[in-house]
């Protein structure tokens, strides 16, 4: 069927493979562009081990080279990843491009690579082999999406801070995507070399990087078959132009550029978003994701016990945060026990959010010490460790995973209470399905709890403001926290909604969750909390039961306000 097109379809498959090495880092939101360097290393080193003749009389010698290439690529990616791990965005892009260039120059000047003249090789890659490898990658990425690590990638891409607060180890997730990219690029390098029959350092340069990036973005990095679509598109465009009778020469790159531009401008999310659009149109109601079918949601998750009432959950001694002369928080003593609902109020700029950031591990204190759920404040490791200890929080300005649905957002929240499922998903093991269902059921429960059950599949960015606040709470609850910190959750809510939220908070506390509530809605705070703390200019000016604090004159002056009659405004 494909006679006469073999090289073309092999090229299509190989381009798809290269694009996957970009796809995996773009999934995690990173602009890592060193793939040409990994491919080059993988290709050159594999030439040292690939035999000259077929194995056992019939098998392609490249089969030996493939694992070697992948290992080399992965290792190189790891080694590169360590120093560049803290870079983001354009800086990461340039650093990785620079790496690829350095590799190219090293290969150019090395003796054993034969420099610019390159190495001549046999063609050991058949269209069948190339498509087989591509099929495996497509399969793997298909199974990756709904797995725990797939969600972690998406979370890191959408919002790193929120991801870490849900217990995702951001650094490790990024490194994983990095190493995967290296492995796939190394794989590509080997296949490429043994298809085109040669390697020269110039093959693995800037233009290879551009090709891979373009295909990955045009195909779309939000859906698992993006690289496949992108590669088909890019490979077919010149053929289509030829068939249309366009003369060989400058017209071809011009038209190709124009088509690229059109695709990118019209299709956010790339070509694969067309598939999503069609899928949505063909169905009347939003489709259930594979692991969220009707039966899912019945299996109860195994959740650890919450701390018994009255156990110390949070202890702060003289904790402070200085920003070069500005005392955001100064000498705060605080104690919180399991089962309490602590309200934190105070004027804007009083240091409430800074205090919360220190507790949740996003910021380290500059003075004093404290413990939260057994973990020292400011200890190395970052916010995800604190989350693992049982702390969960929402943010003053919603940090949702915009492109993920309500359910998917909440599912990220289950990161800490669910098990890794990717490897088992590859093998279609039933235990993976069970674990996924447990996670979904946990997520569903929280979604129902906050009243968003009928909007499960709506992307977070499309929710109303109030719903977004509620979604954040659902997500925070999904990790089964011992301490839940809510940063102005009622902002933008009306009386009825605030009352519902109040009810929810009380029920959570009844279930054993310790809650810390930062709010400007003083009525709600007085209504809901068992104890209130007032901050002003970074210091605690009052602490105690709600009614006592409300009538404290200092508090009234600083925050609550009074008219000439001396009555407080509450």
């Amino acid at each position, binding site marked *: 069927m494909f006679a006469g097109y073999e090289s073309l379809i092999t090229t299509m498959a190989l381009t798809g493979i290269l694009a996957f090495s970009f796809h995996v880092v*773009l999934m995690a939101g990173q*602009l890592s562009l060193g793939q040409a360097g990994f491919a080059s290393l993988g290709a050159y080193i594999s030439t040292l081990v690939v035999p000259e003749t077929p194995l056992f009389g019939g098998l392609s010698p490249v089969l030996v080279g493939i694992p070697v290439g992948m290992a080399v690529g992965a290792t190189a990616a790891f080694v590169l990843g360590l*120093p*560049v791990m*803290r*870079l*983001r*965005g*354009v*800086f990461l*892009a*340039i*650093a990785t*491009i*620079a*790496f690829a*260039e*350095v590799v190219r*120059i*090293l290969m*150019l*000047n090395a003796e054993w690579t034969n420099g610019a003249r390159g190495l001549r090789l046999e063609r050991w890659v058949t269209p069948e082999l190339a498509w087989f490898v591509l099929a495996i990658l497509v399969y793997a990425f298909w199974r990756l999406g709904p797995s725990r690590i797939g969600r972690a990638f998406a979370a890191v891409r959408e919002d*790193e*801070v929120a991801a870490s607060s849900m217990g995702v180890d951001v650094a490790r997730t990024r490194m994983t995507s990095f190493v995967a990219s290296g492995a796939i690029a190394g794989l590509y390098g080997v296949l490429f070399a043994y298809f085109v029959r040669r390697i020269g350092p110039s093959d693995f340069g*800037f233009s290879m990087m*551009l090709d891979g*990036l*373009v295909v990955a*973005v*045009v195909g779309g*990095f939000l859906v698992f078959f993006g690289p496949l679509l992108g590669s088909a598109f890019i490979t077919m465009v010149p053929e289509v132009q030829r068939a249309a009778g366009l003369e060989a*020469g*400058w*017209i*071809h*790159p*011009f038209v*190709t*550029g*124009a088509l*690229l*531009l059109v695709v*990118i*401008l019209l299709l*956010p*999310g790339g070509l694969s978003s067309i598939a999503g659009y069609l899928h949505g149109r063909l169905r009347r109601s939003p489709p259930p994701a594979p692991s969220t079918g009707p039966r899912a949601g019945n299996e109860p998750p195994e959740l650890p016990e919450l701390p018994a009432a009255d156990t110390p959950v949070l202890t702060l001694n003289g904790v402070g945060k200085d920003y070069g002369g500005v005392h955001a928080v100064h000498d705060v003593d605080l104690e919180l026990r399991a089962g309490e609902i602590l309200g934190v109020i105070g004027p804007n700029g009083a240091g409430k959010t800074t205090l919360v950031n220190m507790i949740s591990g996003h910021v380290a204190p500059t003075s004093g010490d404290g413990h939260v759920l057994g973990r020292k404040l400011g200890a190395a490791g970052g916010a995800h460790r604190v989350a693992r200890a049982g702390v969960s929080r929402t943010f003053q300005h919603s940090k949702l995973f*915009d*492109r993920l649905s309500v359910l998917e957002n909440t599912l990220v929240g289950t990161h800490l209470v669910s098990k890794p499922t990717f490897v088992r998903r590859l093998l279609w093991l039933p235990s993976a399905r069970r674990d996924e269902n447990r996670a979904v059921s946990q997520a569903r429960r929280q979604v129902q709890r906050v009243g968003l059950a009928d909007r499960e599949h709506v992307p977070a*960015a499309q929710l109303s403001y109030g719903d977004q606040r509620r979604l954040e709470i659902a997500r925070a609850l999904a990790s089964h926290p011992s301490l839940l910190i809510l940063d102005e959750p009622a902002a933008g809510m009306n009386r009825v909604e605030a009352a519902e939220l109040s009810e929810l908070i009380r029920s959570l506390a009844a279930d054993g969750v310790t809650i810390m509530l930062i709010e400007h809605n003083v009525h709600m705070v007085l209504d809901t909390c068992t104890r209130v703390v007032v901050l002003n200019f970074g210091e605690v000016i009052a602490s105690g039961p709600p009614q006592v604090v409300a009538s404290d004159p200092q508090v009234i002056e600083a925050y609550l306000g009074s008219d000439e009659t001396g009555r407080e405004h509450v």
Partner: protein
Amino acid sequence: MLQQLANGLFAGSIYALFAIGFTLVFGILRHLNLAHAAIFTTGGFLSVDLISRQGLPIWLAFPLVMLAGGLIGLLLERIAFRPLAGRPDEHFAGLISSVAFGGMLIALVQARYGTEQQSISSEAFPNEVYTVAGVSISLAQLTTLGLALVLMLGLAWVVAATPLGRAMRAVAENARAARVLGINVERVTASTYALSSALGAMAGMLMVLNVGQGDLGMGLAIELTGFAVIILGGMGSLWGAMAAGLILGLAEALTIHHIGSSWKDVVAFGLLFAILLVRPQGLFGTIKAREV
């Protein structure tokens, strides 16, 4: 030795001029404009067209090339970047759209000028060489350094002292707030691209003047060095780009002299790496390298 230093300085001035356009767009708008190299090349070819084919005097060609560059910059912004504003994939998509635009531009340049190398004849621009303290310097080199300095200082003045410059700095800090304050963000964006591309086109013209000819691939070579310059100098820092361009030019000349030409890029990228790890905001930059 002195000759090597002189060589490096002059080469560096073109790097600096190229990089400054690049870093301007990044500093103000956070876009990485991968079409800049194509605009550079177009500027070079246009200058040959104006001078050698249309017979215009060189002092007239300078402003015309800059004007053309500016217009292309406006077109680029309108077609490749503005439609993406606000989209979640804005930055990744912007890379691709600028690559596509650049490709189309080069194809058009080839359509108009063919594939040969082009050069400016010596009637239009004399091939004078001066010798100072044993060091040979050509008129082209002097012109390049002079013009580059004038343009860079001019740009720095615009950014520091004019209303447009203030608006640009406001947008760089916080586009939303700038809009609320009544700044026309779209116009500032368009102006930024126009300025950046005018400088890029000019850099292309100076390159052709210096090198003796332009060819379709001239943009690719300088693009990578451009990356090194803007990182070294600090993304978004104009003075940084200037200084880093010159420093890199010097470093390359010294590397070629002492080690060998193949390694000059390794030195450039090694410096880039070191800076990214030790001081990510570059020698003079203020933009944080980690966007947390």
